[in-house]
């Protein structure tokens, strides 16, 4: 079952995340997207990979994982590590399109 989360950062940028959970409720697969700017571009894939194994509601842990990737590898404009974590925490099963 796929969960989708959205979070609007201060300043208006929107982070979206699609994720799945394993039987323990931990993230097994995730992909972030949104109207922000990150550099290098592959950083987004690394961010998404980095939150595997964490429970979505563990906002501090998700934030920490995201922060470590950003600080070690590049830069993000318009969004913070906390914003990514907030998007994950808001992920729900949705019946809306697509």
């Amino acid at each position, binding site marked *: 079952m796929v969960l*989708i989360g959205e979070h609007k950062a201060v300043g208006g940028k929107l982070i979206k995340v699609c994720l799945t959970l394993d039987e323990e409720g931990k993230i097994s697969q995730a992909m972030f997207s949104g109207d922000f700017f990150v550099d290098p571009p592959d950083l987004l894939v690394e961010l998404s990979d980095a939150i595997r194994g964490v429970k979505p509601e563990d906002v501090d842990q998700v934030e920490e994982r995201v922060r470590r990737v950003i600080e070690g590898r590049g830069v993000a404009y318009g969004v913070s590590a906390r914003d990514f974590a907030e998007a994950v925490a808001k992920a729900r099963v949705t019946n809306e399109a*697509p």
Partner: protein
Amino acid sequence: MQLLMEEWRLLRFESPENPNLNLAVEEALLKSLSEKGVKTLRFWRNSKAVVIGRFQCPLLEVNFEECVNKGVKVVRRHTGGGAVYHDMGNLNFTLVFTKPLRELPDIFREVGEAVAEGLRALGLKSSFKPMNDVAVGQRKVAGLAGYVGKGVVLVHGCLLVSTDIDMLSRVLSVSREKLRDKFVTSVRSRVTTVSEELGRDASTREVEEMLLEAFKHALSFEVYEEDLSREELAYAESLYQEKYSKAEWLGWLCKKCPLRNEHWSMIERLLRV
């Protein structure tokens, strides 16, 4: 003593029916700057296309059925930022230049303030809205996106001159979360056009002249008009063939996304519009 003004090429190359080629040209301009030092100001348009940002999922940003049924192409640019609807009433501008040691938000401010200044010269109450929007009053009229490399900058933006806002509202899927805090419930009430604000039909050519003067003034350059070189076009066409026209580019975020199975056939369908 008068300082020598920089000279930038003024380029009007456009391929409105092929938005992916239009986007490939953008990358070709960056290559020309890096290799030959050619600074460029480009004006261009697309005919009925949604252009999504580098980090967006097309299926989360567009109304798939509307795009397919209305023949609206969906393409991905190589810069971040949000999805925008383009038609021939939408004027795109691109600035490719050198600017050492500046960050993207600073560049957006410099270019965004120039766009706002130009709109004010037309009589509109326009202002730059960080991080990358230009508004008339509280309604967005232009958006910026960009790339900053080692000393090289590409900033491009779209300005709604007489864009079909109803079509824009139908093909873009804007979430309620995005509209939150703006005290509006629809895209329609959040964006405007130059024509709507002026109360008359404004042409993209008229607005182009305004932007040209605003950019020359803000960034201190003169222009010489020149077309795309044969070499640039060949490079852009190869980028179009090998990158922009491929499902792997439009759906690059799909490779690790849990929605890949549902989305991939839709991505391929969008490429056939």
